[in-house]
């Protein structure tokens, strides 16, 4: 009998709390597969955010810490500076990383902290029931932008990969999406590359992953995938924004 598909070792065997069709689960699986392939579960410390992924500390089989909202890069810094030979990753949502934790992520990146950030951009505050996030698209309706995000009053979305790739401490920054099989494959490659950057002590690495929130977008899981492709990808172009180890910095597309 040949095994064609397996649950990654680095994930605990338990029911996750994510809504049906939410792509947080796919992202967990990809991170766990990379941990398995690199055989680093015993050396890895993960930092869970405050957000829908708050319970990630139960799901990942490596050692885990639960962070205050937005502070995961600071915690990760404390861990990495104490255990420089271990792998440290944060798993953060857009509200966590780009709003309340904006200072922590920028400074972890500019210091070139040798950590890997898994940044789940779903253009909304999922956990608290669908409020506007710093990444909410112009015109997008949320609970706290009921007339659609008006850039005159609510300002513009933050392009995290673009912003962090300007910092010299950032070794690797790529934006991917998990809306289709080819894109999921690319997402996995990016996560692997980000962990390799950490292994090679290249500097700070981040993978921004465009993800769905069918519940708070008010869409079926399938329609949510379509909405991501039609609305998010044009606004947040996929690609490698920074790769220090590649010859010259690759430009996006």
């Amino acid at each position: 009998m040949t095994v064609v598909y397996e649950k990654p070792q680095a994930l605990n065997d338990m029911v996750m709390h994510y809504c049906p069709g939410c792509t947080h689960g796919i992202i967990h699986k990809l991170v766990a597969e990379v941990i398995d392939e690199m055989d680093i579960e015993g050396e890895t410390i993960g930092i869970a955010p405050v957000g829908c992924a708050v319970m990630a500390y139960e799901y990942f089989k490596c050692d885990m810490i639960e962070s205050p909202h937005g502070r995961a890069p600071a915690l990760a810094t404390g861990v990495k500076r104490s255990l420089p030979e271990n792998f440290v990753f944060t798993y953060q949502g857009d509200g966590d990383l780009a709003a309340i934790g904006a200072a922590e992520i920028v400074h972890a990146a500019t210091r070139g902290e040798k950590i890997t950030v898994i940044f789940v951009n779903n253009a909304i505050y999922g956990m608290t029931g669908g409020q506007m996030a710093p990444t909410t698209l112009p015109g997008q309706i949320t609970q706290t932008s009921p007339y659609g995000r008006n850039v005159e009053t609510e300002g513009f979305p933050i392009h995290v990969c673009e912003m962090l790739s300007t910092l010299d401490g950032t070794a690797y920054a790529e934006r991917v999406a998990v809306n289709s099989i080819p894109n999921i494959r690319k997402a996995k490659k990016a996560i692997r590359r980000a962990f390799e950057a950490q292994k090679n002590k290249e500097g700070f690495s981040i993978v921004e992953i465009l993800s769905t929130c069918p519940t708070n977008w008010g869409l079926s899981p399938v329609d949510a995938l379509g909405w991501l492709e039609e609305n998010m990808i044009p606004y947040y172009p996929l690609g490698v924004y920074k790769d220090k180890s590649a010859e010259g910095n690759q430009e996006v597309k």
Partner: protein
Amino acid sequence: MTEKQAERVLMKGNEAMAEAAIQAGCRHFFGYPITPSTEIAAYMSKRMPKVGGTYLQAESEVAAINMVLGAAAAGVRVMTGSSSPGISLKSEGVSYLAGCDLPCVIINVQRGGPGLGGIQPSQADYWQATKAWGHGDFQILVYAPSTVQEMVNLMMEAFDKADEYRIPALMLVDGLLGQMMEPIAFPEKDLSTIPAKPWATNGHKHKREHNIVNSLCLKPDELEQQVIARFARYDIIKAKEAQAEEYLVDDADIVLVAFGATARTTRSAIDMAREKDIKAGMIRPITLWPFPEKVIQKAANTAQCFLSVEMSMGQMIDDIKLAINCTKPVHFYGRTGGMVPMPVDILGKIEELARGLK
């Protein structure tokens, strides 16, 4: 005594605490500059690289305390230092540290407040330190040294007790002590007694189940049990760790209560009062949490009244009243905003109280 123990050096309070931390095995310091605590960061930035440690200047006190959280979870001895406004920014992190049962040491070199306040010495963060660190049911250890030597000794003790009880510990000092120079000796520190930390998130290496450092608990009954268990630990701390110094208390009619730098001027005032045949004495709390209730209760049997002397509007009075169940009058003399109570002024208050006795 070894030669090293005998060797005395002249050091500033802030720098002495920093050196004591290093000798206590602390190799990680995360901070953000603020007067009057900056010498701690400056000293650490110079010394840490020489002892293979980490000094990291964080982007804010918020980040600094969360770096402390990460390092504490990783199982190392770690600290931060700041002054009043910066300490307020750390309160979220301290609540999480307490909720995660993580050991660490924090220094607050207090300055006048509220708000940006001033940069002169103060004790107006007493309430914050002992009662209002942050959200939720929790306490942390609070040490209040009053000499540079005691800053050294208690700094080392703070690391030990933080590890023993898995609790954050605070060194509550003020700008006066921080800037003061005194001759000190560093006691020989036995680092082999640092307890093992099997709970640390330092990579399981496939030799144990994964460790989780966490303060989230969504089931109210479970969270209640966790908090109750933590408070059982607090009861042990209260029974075992309260410390105070008594000075001429046995026959004293008036017992002054003062801590930190204020205890120094209070001691001089008591000597002056004794020369005038006024029976005054002093209880100097060395730990503010746990508060040395028993020592104060005992004094209430013989004293006619108490006088709390503070560099604040009177934040410790309530604890004295509670300790003695209001069985004796508790008076107050204090200065605030960076003003220091002088011995003659304290003496004036003692004389006023003495006139009212009998």
